[in-house]
């Protein structure tokens, strides 16, 4: 009994340590974003909102935030639409080259980002569309569509295979069945896939840095700020980015989980 309890506490401590390792750097970044000292040292200086003010008054940061928002929302829309279409194709049809089709779709996340970024840059330059906001959106959509596809495919696999045919049987044509049955059934997956792809795009640095040209996104501008000098501004921006990503990820999780609970 005592042994069991000791073991439980040990395991609990281990779990706590894991969380500390993961979140301590982020936590410190948040703490230092409110610290008046220029250098991140302990003991801390006074509480201040100075760094947030600097960021707030920096037009470059505003510009980057606007670009990031445009990119992540557009990416999320395109990637989710693409992901839904590919997942539905996989669900609905069987064809000879399907393993290859699935393999190709799921390929992008396995390519090292730096390679992908370089390839994208070269390709966009050839097409004459590099250095535009659109180029970041295209590149991010390619990168994140597989995630969207995976989430929606999982949801479709939980669907009673008779459901769509039941809609046809009751008089729905293919489009009505899609709109009235498939999409509503996949709604939780669509929402969470939208949030996750938006979060991935919002955080993504390597590809953005290569293809963005003058249209810097938030991660790109962070690198520019920290290059050559230590500026607690980045802590402020970092905290903000963390907040946005976490919110999106948590929404995605909650939407998926409440739905599952309700159906069981």
């Amino acid at each position, binding site marked *: 009994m005592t042994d069991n309890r000791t073991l439980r506490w040990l395991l609990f401590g281990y779990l706590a340590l894991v969380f500390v390792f993961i979140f301590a750097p982020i936590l410190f970044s948040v703490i230092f974003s409110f610290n008046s000292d220029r250098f991140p040292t302990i003991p801390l200086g006074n509480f201040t909102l100075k760094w947030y003010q600097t960021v707030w008054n920096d037009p470059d940061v505003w510009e980057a935030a606007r670009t990031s928002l445009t990119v992540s929302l557009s990416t999320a829309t395109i990637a989710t639409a693409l992901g839904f279409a590919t997942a539905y194709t996989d669900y609905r049809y069987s064809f000879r080259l399907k393993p290859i089709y699935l393999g190709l779709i799921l390929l992008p996340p396995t390519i090292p980002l730096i390679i992908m970024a370089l390839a994208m840059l070269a390709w966009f330059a050839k097409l004459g569309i590099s250095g535009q906001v659109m180029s970041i959106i295209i590149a991010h959509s390619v990168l994140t569509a597989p995630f969207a596809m995976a989430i929606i495919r999982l949801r479709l696999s939980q669907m*009673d295979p*008779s*459901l769509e*045919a*039941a*809609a*046809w*049987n*009751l*008089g*729905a*044509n293919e489009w*009505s*069945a899609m709109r*009235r*049955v498939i999409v*509503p*059934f996949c*709604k939780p997956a669509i929402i969470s896939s939208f949030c996750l792809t938006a979060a991935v795009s919002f955080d993504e640095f390597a590809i953005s840095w290569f293809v963005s040209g003058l249209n810097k996104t938030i991660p790109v501008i962070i690198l520019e700020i920290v290059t050559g000098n230590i500026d607690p501004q980045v802590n402020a921006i970092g905290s903000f980015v963390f907040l946005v990503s976490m919110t999106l990820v948590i929404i995605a999780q909650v939407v998926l989980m409440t739905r599952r609970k*309700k*159906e069981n």
Partner: protein
Amino acid sequence: MVAPLVEFRSVVKRFDDFVAVEDVNFTIDAGEFVAIMGPSGCGKTTTLRMLAGLEAPSEGEILMDGRVMNDVPAHERDTPLVWQSLALFPFLTARENVEFGLQMRGVGAAECRRRALEWLDRMEILEFADRDISSLSGGQKQRVALARSLVIEPRILLLDEPLSALDANLVIRMQSVLTRLQRELGITFVYVTHSQSEAFAMADRVVIMSRGHISQIGSPKDIYRAPANRFVAEFVGRNNIISGTVTKTTAKTVTIEGSLGSFTVQTGRHDAPRKGDLARFVVAADLAQVAVKQPKSGSVIPCTLISEEFIGSVVTLFLEAADGSELKVQLQERELSKMDLKSATTIYLNWADEHGHYIGVD
């Protein structure tokens, strides 16, 4: 003569190399309750799905009201199906599920609601109208599924093993709900099942399928009392199938001699076999009798008792003949209690000759 509501004309359905339905011909009249029965993989569900337009026949034609339906898409047919899995829309309430088919037919919102509630009321689940599907019990879901199909006022309702997920008591209740509905509405029910009790309890006519073919079509009594062939006799169960070589034929009878003895049966609707053919006949377990003393009339097989199965008022005795074959007799418990079988060494299975039913040669 009125044209049948549904007609299958030499319908074949192939999936790649697999032939699911092979040369099926039959008709269904308006207002009939037809059960299509057979073991799994016999093609019964495929037949039903072709009727609903969810599968296209590879060959042949399916007609409804004299019109060839082969190229009519599923959503343009009024052939609602009650699914084995029910396939209710989980993101809609009971009422919204029932409204679905009406909405697809362009019925206005108020009218949809009125008719959906009317049907939910008729199925005695009005109080659950605004509940999520997941919060309903199996029987309640069943009723929603029925309401969803019937609300569009079809002339034919297709049912694909709809009761297979329910427990035994509920099955009996739903059977009476279904037969009552069918009578009240006067529409055609086509009911696919592997359960003999469901088919026999409800259907006017039963179609027995085996490996894509139709083995027999007839009333439940026909199929029970006069199985057309060995497959049906075995599938229906509780039959003693006795085989042997044909030793004598007359215009109406055939004499079959096998390891159990020599028996003479009527050929009935079958062609007369030739001498030397391997032929079979059936003695239904409930038409046979047992005796402790050797009976003087009818056909007799001496046996020993192996076991008995007691189901309330009916008892099934399992007997073994001298050649090792197993035979069955079904008796009323009160008849059995008059006999002292336990102490008897030999039990005589016996039946009146007219109860032997010839099922043809192999």
